[in-house]
């Protein structure tokens, strides 16, 4: 279980996030650009500080731990493969920093699962956008986190690659707790066990995509705002 209570004053609004995520759930964090989704993710992963913050993971308060000790892997929006390393070196990075014994078999196994074994000796600049995201995910899994936060992982991909990667992400469901940030309702529809809607820093929790749509009374998600007061989780 991941419990989050965050308060942070931004220039134009205040973030007041309050939600719980069950273990190994796939939660899609939906909201418009600039709603505060990424900021909440950064606070949870320890990259940003908040005015008030309580992050409890599996009953342990990790609010004051540095990012590397939280066991929350945050994948930012842009290409975050280390450009000076090969794909293989990128995958080995989490093992290398934990000073784990070089385990080529483990890396190759994960690389096979994520369909990136053929590109192990290439540089990040030589592979496609979809492959970059798959390598980033594989690397996150190798860091053995409890929670993976994907910040707009599909936003820079073309439609076909996006569809392929959505199928791929479906296979990750049930293996790790995942917070998937997006402004695209398609991703929420295809992937979400639960939906967390963010509007000007406030979080609204929905049991499922269906629940979210029902509450929206058939309107577009952007207009869902007026229904939120009835669904805010305490």
């Amino acid at each position, binding site marked *: 279980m991941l419990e989050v209570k965050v308060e942070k004053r931004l220039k134009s609004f205040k973030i007041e996030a309050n939600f719980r995520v069950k273990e190994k759930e796939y939660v899609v964090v939906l909201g418009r650009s600039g709603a505060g989704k990424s900021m909440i993710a950064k606070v949870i992963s320890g990259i940003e500080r908040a005015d008030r913050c309580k992050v409890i993971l599996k009953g342990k308060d990790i609010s004051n731990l540095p990012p*590397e000790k939280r066991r929350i892997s945050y994948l930012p929006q842009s290409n975050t493969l280390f450009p000076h390393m090969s794909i293989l070196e990128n995958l080995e990075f989490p093992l290398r*920093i934990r000073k784990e014994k070089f385990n080529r078999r483990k890396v190759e196994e994960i690389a096979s699962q994520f369909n990136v074994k053929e590109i192990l000796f290439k540089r990040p600049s030589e592979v496609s956008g979809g492959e970059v995201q798959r390598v980033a995910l594989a690397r996150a899994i190798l860091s053995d986190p409890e929670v993976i936060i994907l910040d707009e992982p599909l936003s820079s991909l073309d439609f076909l690659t996006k569809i392929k990667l959505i199928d791929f992400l479906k296979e990750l469901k049930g293996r790790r707790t995942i917070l998937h940030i997006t402004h695209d309702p398609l991703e929420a529809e295809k992937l979400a066990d639960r939906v967390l809607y963010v509007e000007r820093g406030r979080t609204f929790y929905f049991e499922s995509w269906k629940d979210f749509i029902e509450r929206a009374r058939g309107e577009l998600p952007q207009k869902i705002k007026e229904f939120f007061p009835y669904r805010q989780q305490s």
Partner: protein
Amino acid sequence: MKNPKWLYLLVITLTIICLTFITLPILNVFISLDPENFKNTLKDGEVWKAIFTSLKGATFATIVGLIMGVPTSYFLFQTESKYSELIESVINLPIVIPHVAVGITLLELLNSNSPLGKFFSHLGISFVDTIYGIIIAMCFVSISYTITSSLMGFRSINKELIWTARSLGASPYQVVKFVILPLAFPYILRGAILSFARSISEVGAILIIAYYPITAPVLMYERFEDYGLKSSTPIAVLVICISLIIFIILLSISYRREKRIA
């Protein structure tokens, strides 16, 4: 929008003039070189000794510059305060001070009767007319290049790469070791190359604080003063050749590293 033809021609013309301005004096010195004179220079022990002193001084000045400069630029990269701009201006001061003035200020500070000079004398280090004086003068006039270039390197790193590394489990030290320094390395190397180049060519400050042991530029100046162009040109050609070889090697390493990261 397409540039007008006259603008294109003007830019091309100015580029050609600029390249000619840079290369013409260098090419001319090679053309006007008397081969016999050059042969004699190659056999001149004093010339080689001076070149060796210059290379030794510049190498140590660059190393000292890197040891002090890279942490300074990392500190500036990490701490964005209202004083950052002021500190950056101070760092660039050696570039704007006339180099003879640098020599005078360093001599004022480090002569054997000054408190700092006395302190170093106790450690067996004197700066007047020694290799230490040459290194200090070279380091002073060149350190700004190392700091500025390293700072550019650190600032060019996508912050999201640093966040990713942290959230993958890397400690701040590991992030510096495995991510920040390798990514900034081409910039640091380029700063070091510029510092080395600046150090090799320094003459004004060295003339004041450490005329001896004689460096190549000081020897060139001395020969020019005593015997004229004929005597100083072969040394200039030799120094240009050695400098070009060193810079081509170092720059190719820098470009190769940059290409790996791009």
